[in-house]
């Protein structure tokens, strides 16, 4: 049989790019609908206070204004209650009282919380009128850190009475009573930052009163969940709401979750019976989109003298912000569940406490909880290895989970009970390959050396990257009259190259050229049910459901062909280009006539995948300024099966640079009044193209996942996860003679300079 060369595994250039690079993309702000109005949101300038009244009278009379809505106006339409944003993942009843209202009602709990919505002919007029909305807020003591939150002097809610939102405990073996030759306890801290996409959030809501239908453009990540949430909040039938996915300029976990504006804008559209658009500005994005990462840990490691880790125990305090939003509990769960990473640690006891504070609510940011966990664990490992006089590479090698231990069970978490299993992998082989390709042997001679006024340091670390979350994905496949095959899939595109990946998978399975495959995704108009993107799931879940869809289409084509040829369907074999044969007889797809062959399928998967890998860094530290140059960075990840090495590498490099931003630059800095001081991109510093030119990445397909037909593992987050640990370990290695052990991020030049200053002070004493 003549087969087409396999496309999966080849570096096919992104199918999306031609359209994007030639200016043909359509982002939500590119959509203009006749009669469209624009919304601006009035936001709380106060972090914590009683909202005594909102006066919209003056604003209503401003030029171009069509409507101004406060909590009172909204409650009137919903029987006196303001709708709340349900937690999407891992619901437990105890958290319902701290879910966020779509608009502030009696209290404001963070700067940026919506107080009113103004709708006008233009965005500028809406902003002009928003300035004229007045309100009275009686200030309360703002809670701006987890310690203050724990002290409980200023509760955010009447119920629950404490600011402890929830405590998760991850347990394995008996860590509390575990004893070993060596123990060390340390505190580590990661600062509040998040994944801010280049394109801010936004939506266009179109209410059609005749049809009683709501269409929302600009859905992303999880459109089907957004549809259910909006329909419930607006008390509309599910099939009266549609979410339309257009081009999306990045998500990183943050975009596409359900936010207050995702209710407020459709509400305004329905009330005014006009299309209403809202595009978040950069300040709003920094103020009000999901924040993440802010955690402080106190962890103790217990080892044998040979470096074998016996136990990890301690606690993590998560600054969760003012409410628990749709994905707000995930970082706090994952930091505990996955603290052990790729290592075989027999005893674990970690408490993760989510504290409420008067800051923007948190959500997921690429590698949620895992970036933090890796920083804590890998730093602690290097401290321990140095104390024990063991080479840090050797320390890792003896503790990595071995291939023979797979599947390997992680700790068990409560509320609700959850555990997970590392599915497959040869962790040591990947560590070795990473070091080889990084050039560890050639570079290790530079360790700790002062060259041209800069101290050189190297480090390597290992990580796991959980993927394939969310139990299901859905697809519909159609054989078109022109021989094209269209696959509608529930996965969403957030810029990760979804169309390219799914096209490659479909093309191989159908033995068709890529030009004959059409992938349509994300919108609720395509399918009755779907999930989306997030939790590194699109390749595994979307790819697997595409395979299922192709199998189902082929089954139906076989049945149809068997009827035509008068044989049994089992006798039908597929050749390339949808040519079917039965013995000597041959039939093309076009001879099946316009039968409208189509199939709708669902892929169900109860297992997460665990991609894994290692990353290595070479830094040079200027001891006089604290500035760190990244000389080389290499990250290697085993994705089970690489569908497209080009997009896999792109994901890893982009994620690594985000991680570097988290290590050196990005900081959502609040003052003691709960004001966000880093509220522009001049003050919230993101890495730019020139900051870290030497980042290399490679993806391999060494150990396939046993849990899906592709053998693939989700890998969109692995690039970011190890960065904090590896970089700071490299810096500590560079400054080893000064005994400097940085324990907090961001490691700004000044922060490092201060550590060096105090080390100098110590040595001169």
């Amino acid at each position: 049989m003549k087969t087409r060369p396999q496309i999966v595994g080849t570096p096919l250039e992104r199918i999306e790019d031609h359209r994007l690079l030639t200016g043909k993309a359509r982002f939500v702000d590119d959509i203009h609908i006749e009669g469209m109005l624009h919304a601006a949101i009035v936001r709380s300038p106060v972090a914590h206070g009683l909202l005594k009244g909102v006066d919209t009278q003056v604003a209503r009379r401003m030029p171009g204004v069509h409507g101004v809505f406060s909590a009172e106006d909204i409650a009137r339409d919903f029987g006196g209650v303001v709708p709340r944003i349900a937690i999407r993942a891992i619901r437990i009843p105890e958290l319902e009282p701290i879910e966020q209202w779509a608009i502030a009602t009696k209290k404001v709990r963070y700067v940026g919380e919506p107080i009113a919505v103004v709708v006008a002919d233009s965005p500028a007029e809406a902003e002009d009128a928003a300035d004229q909305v007045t309100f009275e807020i009686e200030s309360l003591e703002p809670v701006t850190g987890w310690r203050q939150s724990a002290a409980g002097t200023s509760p955010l809610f009447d119920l629950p009475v404490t600011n402890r939102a929830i405590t998760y405990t991850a347990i394995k073996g008996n860590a509390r009573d575990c004893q070993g030759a060596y123990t060390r306890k340390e505190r580590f801290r990661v600062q509040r930052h998040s994944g801010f996409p280049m394109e801010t959030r936004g939506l266009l809501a179109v209410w059609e009163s005749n049809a009683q239908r709501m269409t929302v453009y600009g859905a992303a990540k999880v459109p089907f969940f957004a549809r259910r949430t909006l329909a419930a909040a607006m008390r509309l039938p599910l099939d009266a709401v549609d979410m339309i996915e257009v081009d999306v300029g990045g998500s990183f976990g943050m975009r596409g979750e359900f936010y207050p504006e995702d209710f407020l804008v459709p509400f305004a559209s329905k009330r005014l019976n006009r299309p209403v658009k809202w595009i978040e500005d950069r300040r709003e994005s920094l103020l009000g989109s999901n924040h993440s990462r802010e955690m402080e840990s106190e962890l103790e490691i217990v080892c044998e003298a040979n470096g074998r880790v016996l136990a990890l125990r301690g606690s993590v305090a998560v600054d969760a912000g003012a409410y628990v939003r749709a994905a707000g509990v995930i970082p706090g769960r994952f930091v505990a569940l996955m603290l052990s990473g790729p290592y075989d640690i027999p005893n674990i006891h970690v408490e993760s406490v989510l504290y409420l504070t008067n800051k923007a609510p948190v959500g997921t940011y690429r590698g949620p909880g895992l970036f933090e966990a890796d920083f804590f664990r890998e730093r602690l490992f290097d401290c321990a290895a140095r104390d024990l006089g063991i080479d840090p590479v050797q320390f890792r090698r003896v503790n990595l989970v071995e291939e023979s231990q797979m599947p390997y069970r992680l700790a068990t978490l409560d509320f609700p009970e959850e555990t997970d299993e590392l599915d497959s992998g040869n962790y040591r082989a990947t560590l070795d390959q990473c070091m080889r390709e990084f050039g560890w042997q050639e570079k290790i001679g530079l360790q700790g050396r002062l060259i041209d006024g800069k101290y050189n340091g190297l480090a390597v670390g290992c990580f796991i990257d959980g993927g394939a979350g969310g139990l299901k994905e859905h697809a519909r496949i159609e054989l078109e009259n022109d021989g094209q095959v269209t696959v509608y899939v529930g996965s969403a595109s957030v810029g990760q190259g979804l169309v390219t990946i799914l096209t490659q998978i479909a093309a191989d399975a159908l033995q068709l050229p890529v030009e004959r495959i059409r992938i349509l995704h994300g919108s609720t108009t395509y399918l009755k049910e779907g999930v989306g993107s997030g939790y590194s799931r699109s390749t595994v879940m979307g790819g697997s459901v595409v395979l299922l869809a192709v199998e189902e289409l082929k089954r139906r084509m076989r049945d149809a062909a068997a009827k035509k040829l008068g044989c049994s369907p089992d006798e039908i074999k597929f050749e390339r280009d949808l040519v079917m044969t039965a013995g000597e007889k041959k039939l093309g797809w076009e001879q099946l006539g316009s039968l409208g062959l189509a199939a709708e399928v669902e892929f169900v998967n109860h297992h997460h995948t665990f991609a894994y890998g290692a990353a290595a860094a070479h830094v040079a530290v200027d001891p006089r300024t604290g500035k760190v140059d990244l000389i080389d960075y290499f990250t290697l990840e085993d994705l089970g099966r690489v569908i497209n090495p080009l997009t896999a590498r792109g994901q890893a490099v982009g994620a690594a640079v985000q991680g570097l931003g988290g290590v050196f630059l990005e900081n959502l800095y609040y003052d003691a009044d709960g004001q966000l001081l880093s509220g522009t991109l001049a003050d919230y510093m993101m890495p730019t193209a020139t900051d870290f030119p030497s980042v290399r990445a490679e993806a391999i397909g060494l150990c396939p996942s046993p849990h899906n037909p592709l053998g693939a593992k989700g890998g969109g987050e692995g690039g970011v996860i190890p960065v904090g640990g590896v970089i700071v370990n490299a810096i500590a290695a560079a400054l080893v003679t000064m005994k400097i052990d940085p324990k907090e991020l961001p490691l700004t030049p000044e922060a490092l300079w201060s550590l060096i200053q105090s080390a100098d002070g110590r040595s001169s004493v």
Partner: protein
Amino acid sequence: MKLPKFDYVEPTTALEAVTLLSQSRGLAKVIAGGQSLIPTMALRLAQPALLIDLRHLESLRGIAVDEAGLRLGAMTRWREIQDSAEVLDTHPLLVEAVRHIAHYQIRNRGTVGGSLAHADPAAELPCIAVTCGASIRVLGILGEREILADEFFLGPLATALGDDEIILEVRFPRWPSSRQWGFQEFSRRQGDFALAGVAIFYDTDNSGRLENAHVGVFGVGQCATRLSGVESALNGRTNTISVAAEVARLAAAEVTPSDDLHASARYRRALVAVLLERAMALARGERA
């Protein structure tokens, strides 16, 4: 972040511009490259009723070199300075400083006059103007006057420019080709405002002793300023590693930085010392 409502005019002569400015009674703003003003307006920190755009004022354009030195029209954009072989020949310190200004998109639009009038304490050009003893020629409703750079900058975003005055040009004194110089700036990312910056130059006598030492700093005080204590300590000495280290300590003591989100005063002092040492090394012809 949409701009508030404003009127907009494009005068064609400098006199027309100052007349409009004078008539506006403080409600108008002059716009040159707009690289600071537009974001300020978008954040609604400024809401001028009228923008007077100087882009059609041909008399404010151009780079000229003569016996007296270098003249840059107020509407000269950074890119034009970078592209000019003549400026590189006649004022290498200025070109090096401009290279550190923001990003190339901003350098394509940002102007010399805009930077001087905005008077950001961390901006490069005010420091070069002060360090080099430049003068700023301005036009108001009552006529022209020339203000020494040293007297022009009064504090953060504050200048001696009158309400009805616009900048016409900045004049730099002649730069001898034998002059030695160094420029150093420290910022978090390439193109960010400096946490600290140092510009130095000096001439030497026959025995290699320094004379006419000029040392300017920016980002470490209310506005760019010269360090007279450091300058007098340098004159009559030679630029050696130990002299550089000595004056670096003096510089750290002489500056008056304050704390902000991006750096503490203590760190900024330390940076000034390091940057001055490195600028001195550059002036010696060594690597920083």
